[in-house]
């Protein structure tokens, strides 16, 4: 075999010598004589040089015989985990819009372990040129079956030849990718002999031209000689590719949409503080400092009901009310298994000091929107605590030492023409009866924040808030009488 084929040092786009490789032959590759990898390296080098894009190029070398592509190609390099090159390419390309990214992959790498990444990157239309070496075997690990192994082909793991009944059929990656909408360019070429290599050269250049023009995803499959594993001489392997591989994998330009598509241009990241403050709304935020206040008695509130009754948002409004007065506060939604049953609950803690666990096991106040919540949480309420519940839940016997208030919250809200705002009426009841140590105006102020995006709803909710409070006031007066 022509040993001089291995010498590619100094070829256009290829380093003059290969110090990363080291060893005695500083201009020869580590590939076997007659290997397709060496040929393709030359083609890529040439195309990069002709297109004058070497500064912008990043080659991702795979796990496989081409793991050391970075010894040779004169451009930026990164080495990938097995099969992950298209994902890595996505990261580079998204981060650096001007980078020209190439994923160089074998058939085990691309079509087996990395098939998902392959298809998904193609489907996203990443700006990426994929160069796919199909040599029908796993070269580096000693010639095991690849997804592209031909039927009947003998490999290290198909000693009797690939039997499709056990091992399936050769996979046609170009054809699979051709079902997707996003790819711009898909072609299958061959590296078997000079004539084929000439065509392959054009395909490589086209794939990179598309990257230079930022048009999107290009994919070129190369039927490639691996004379070592297939134990053939130069003529034998060329014949194998031309006659057997081509029959299974016909050479074809599957698509070229480069004349139709628009370039994909992604803007530079905006790092300015002004922009961040704007998108997070910092300019409209309050400046609230929490102050320690040992005199302030900490309170744990549990709010529970069906999903959709506004349980969580009432909790958030309460948290906002407390936060607005500089109290320490936490809100925590219980997302345990009961969430699936349609009930939800949250814990709110209001304190004059930093808060420990945000979960309220023994509430000072329980707000219950339905019967199941009432029954579930009432026994956990602290002695001397309070339960405020929706009247629709029916009569309820107060646990010993616990005050119970029934509030017709849904009725109040419906009378005000907003039946879905029962939680606001409940919030009013809590304001009136809850004894949480927060000033009255804090509750209404909370709405100005929680409804900041729908300010039209604020007056209505303030009205219902007052009505909820009023209902409790009347109850209190009645009970005093």
């Amino acid at each position, binding site marked *: 075999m022509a040993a001089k084929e291995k010498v590619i040092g100094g070829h256009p786009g290829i380093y003059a010598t290969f110090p990363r490789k080291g060893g005695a032959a500083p201009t020869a590759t580590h590939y076997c004589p007659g290997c397709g990898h060496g040929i393709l390296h030359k083609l890529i080098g040439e195309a990069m040089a002709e297109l004058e894009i070497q500064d912008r190029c990043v080659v991702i070398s795979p796990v496989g015989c081409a793991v050391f592509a970075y010894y040779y190609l004169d451009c930026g390099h990164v080495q990938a985990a097995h099969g992950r090159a298209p994902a890595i390419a996505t990261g580079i390309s998204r981060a650096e819009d001007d980078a020209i990214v190439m994923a160089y992959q074998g058939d085990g790498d691309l079509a087996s372990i990395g098939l998902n990444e392959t298809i998904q990157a193609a489907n996203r239309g990443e700006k990426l040129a994929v160069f796919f070496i199909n040599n029908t075997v796993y070269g580096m690990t000693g010639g095991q079956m690849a997804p592209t192994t031909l039927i009947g082909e003998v490999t290290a793991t198909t000693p009797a030849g690939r039997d499709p009944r056990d091992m399936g059929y050769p996979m046609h990656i170009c054809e699979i990718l051709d079902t997707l909408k996003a790819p711009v360019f898909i072609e299958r070429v061959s590296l078997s002999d000079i004539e084929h290599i000439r065509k392959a050269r054009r395909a490589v250049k086209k794939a990179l031209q598309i990257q230079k023009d930022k048009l999107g995803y290009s994919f070129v499959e190369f039927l490639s000689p691996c004379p070592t594993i297939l134990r053939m001489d130069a003529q034998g392997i060329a014949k194998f590719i031309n006659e057997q591989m081509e029959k299974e994998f016909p050479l074809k330009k599957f698509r070229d949409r480069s004349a139709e598509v628009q370039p994909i241009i992604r803007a530079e990241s905006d790092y300015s503080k002004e922009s961040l403050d704007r998108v997070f709304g910092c300019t409209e935020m309050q400046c609230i400092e929490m102050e320690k206040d040992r005199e302030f008695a900490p309170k744990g509130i549990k709010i529970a009901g069906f999903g959709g009754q506004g349980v969580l948002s009432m909790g958030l409004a309460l*948290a906002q009310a407390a936060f607005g007065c500089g109290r320490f506060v936490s809100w*925590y939604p219980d997302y345990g298994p009961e969430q699936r049953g349609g009930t939800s609950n949250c814990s709110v803690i209001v304190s004059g000091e930093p808060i420990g666990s945000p979960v309220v096991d023994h509430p000072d106040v329980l707000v219950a929107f339905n019967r199941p919540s009432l029954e579930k949480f009432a026994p956990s309420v602290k002695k001397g605590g309070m339960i405020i519940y929706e009247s629709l839940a029916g009569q309820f016997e107060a646990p010993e030492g616990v005050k119970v208030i029934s509030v017709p919250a849904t009725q109040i809200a419906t009378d005000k023409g907003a039946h879905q705002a029962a939680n606001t009426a409940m919030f009013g009841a809590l304001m009136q009866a809850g004894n949480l140590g927060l000033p009255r105006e804090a509750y209404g102020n909370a709405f100005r924040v929680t409804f900041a995006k729908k300010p039209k709803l604020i007056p209505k909710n303030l009205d219902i808030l007052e009505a909820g409070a009023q209902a409790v006031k009347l109850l209190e007066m009645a009970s005093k009488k």
Partner: protein
Amino acid sequence: MASQLVAGNSAVIVGAMYAGCDCFFGYPITPASEILHEASKFFPKVDRKFVQAESEEAAINMVYGAATAGHRVLAASSGPGMSLKQEGITYIAGAELPCVIVDICRAGPGLGNIGPEQSDYNQACKGGGHGCYNNIVLAPASVQEMCDFTMKAFELAFKYRNPAIVLADGVLGHMVEPLKFPETALEHKIDTTWAVAGKAETRGNLVTSIALNFDEMEQHNYKLQEKYRRIKENEAAWDGYKLDDAKVVLVSYGISSRIARSAVDAARKMGIKAGLFRPITLFPFPEKEIRRLADKGCKFISVEMSNGQMREDIRLYSGCQPVELVCRYGGNLIQLDDIVKKIKEVA
């Protein structure tokens, strides 16, 4: 200073963006998904890059790619997703790339459930993938720290060119507390001495973790170990509560440390001299401080939502002192009463 009520998972994105992170790659998983949602909402508003990946493996390899290009990049996941990311993380550690990964830990093993646990301690702090490497691990205990520690994680990741993990749990991810927004925003510039970014200045650079030559690979390992030594020397951080005269020391991080803090107060009311030692960095573990407390004769109780993964470290660094354990699994939080009971037993 602008402040607002914010959920822990949202605070991560605030911290990341003010820390100059401009790439996010994620895959949905409860209880971490809100980080993904927030990134998808806020990143594009300032032309930063967001991709919903096809899997956690793809996501972490996108991280590898953007980190290769020298950018500040974030990923977030939970138990099952973290397991899948280990391949990528060992490559990132081996290639000495900086990145930040947030783990909102849930109950395991296997699919487990979406409740909180602290059972990813070993996976995060002891490497997690193949090879001899370490991640920098920070353990926030509040919404404010979810933001601040994410920022700190970026600083350390770039200082040492190493993956940094923010290890939290489902409670910290979902709870809402006041957040003071950062007062500065970092304008990130890539370091062209090592990044591979498709630029003339970076054309000669290479990012890789392979070295065929055994001696070369050994040298690379020495270099990594030396880096971890420096990290241990310089970056261990912790917080103490009523430690000065403490006889019984609770060691606890993250959400458990807040319950432990309440337990310290409860014990003090009963006249027991209890204190809390809260590691802020789990790698490096604040080992000198543990040793100092051990030398003073303190008795240790590890309070964690795992089978005692951190307890092993406390044992080790205290010079093999007995260390009691108060733990819950399966999504359950540790109960205050259980800690107090154990303090009384030990005191």
